[in-house]
């Protein structure tokens, strides 16, 4: 159990998917203008990323490796992720049309989020078993959501601040993101490696 906890802390904080691995930067800049939208996007991404990690593990273990088809890994993983997003959209719509109206807009954006492909590929590269794959995907997504919400909060405050015209808008957001990345690199100090 301690191994799982270390894996999750490492995935969420030490090797944060956005600020250390630099994956999912388009969503990071695109949906962090408000905390509410960032939270909705974070939860949707967490769901899709965790389910994708589970499915891609099953695909890798039971189909690609036994049949020596690992050269098709990237293509099949992309297909699985797109299918998971479509499936989630259909299920949310079936469960509650009202929920679909409220949250449906975030789902198609996840398909183009490179972290959703990156994490399953990292799972394969690190030879994770089922539990490790699922928890690694879940923790990475939690780290992604945490950064989304923290950065959205910072941007909401920045919108009220007096910023020099040259730096207003995306430039000050990028500077803030770089400072946040520096702060997160401090977590690498607690790694055993």
């Amino acid at each position: 159990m301690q191994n799982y906890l270390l894996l999750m802390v490492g995935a969420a904080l030490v090797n944060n998917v956005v600020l250390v691995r630099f994956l999912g930067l388009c969503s990071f800049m695109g949906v962090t203008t408000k905390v509410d939208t960032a939270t909705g996007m974070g939860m949707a991404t967490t769901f899709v990323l965790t389910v994708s990690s589970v499915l891609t593990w099953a695909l890798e273990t039971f189909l690609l490796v036994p049949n020596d088809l690992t050269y098709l890994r990237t293509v099949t993983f992309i297909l699985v992720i797109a299918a998971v997003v479509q499936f989630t959209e259909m299920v949310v719509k079936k469960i509650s049309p009202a929920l679909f109206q409220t949250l449906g807009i975030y789902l198609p954006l996840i398909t183009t989020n490179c972290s959703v492909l990156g994490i399953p590929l990292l799972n394969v590269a690190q030879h994770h078993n089922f539990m490790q794959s699922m928890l690694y995907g879940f923790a990475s997504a939690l780290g992604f959501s945490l950064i989304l919400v923290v950065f959205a909060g910072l941007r909401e405050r920045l919108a009220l601040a007096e910023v020099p015209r040259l730096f207003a808008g995306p430039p000050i957001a990028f500077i803030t993101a770089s400072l946040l990345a520096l702060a997160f690199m401090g977590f690498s100090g607690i790694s055993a490696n």
Partner: protein
Amino acid sequence: MAEPRDPAGRSLVEGRARVIAIEAGQVLMEPIVSSGCKGCVSAGLCGAMAGSHSLAARRFRIPDGDGLRVGDRVVVGLGQTALLKASWLAYAIPLLLMLAASVAADRLWGRDGISALCAVGGLGVGMAWSRWRAGAMSRRGELTPRYLGPAPEDDVCNDHGNGC
């Protein structure tokens, strides 16, 4: 500008919509795509801009739209707490049950196949529970956007300044 709030004083998330039809005292609306999508170079390939089919699927009805006509552009609001509750219901509950089921199976049997099956079972139970809770919320009207007023004439829809 003051933050929009509902009659109970709770904050609202604003959005833009267009009136599509008025039927039996209820106003049918279609959301106007209000993200930065229109300014994106990949807009033609992106699922978020999938066009009329996608927008038609997101149509919603509001009961209180006196004086509105077909084609009007309006501002609608949804409670921030409703958005968070909806996110929990749709994603967090099924996911947490899936994790709990698979961790429990791993502790009990320690085999990947059984853990995977239990994960699927947990996900199914979570989705059933979400459906039940979402139905209750819908019946109370918590997930229905409310009409806030007409959209300003000079309204622009996204960060790039593209009009709606």
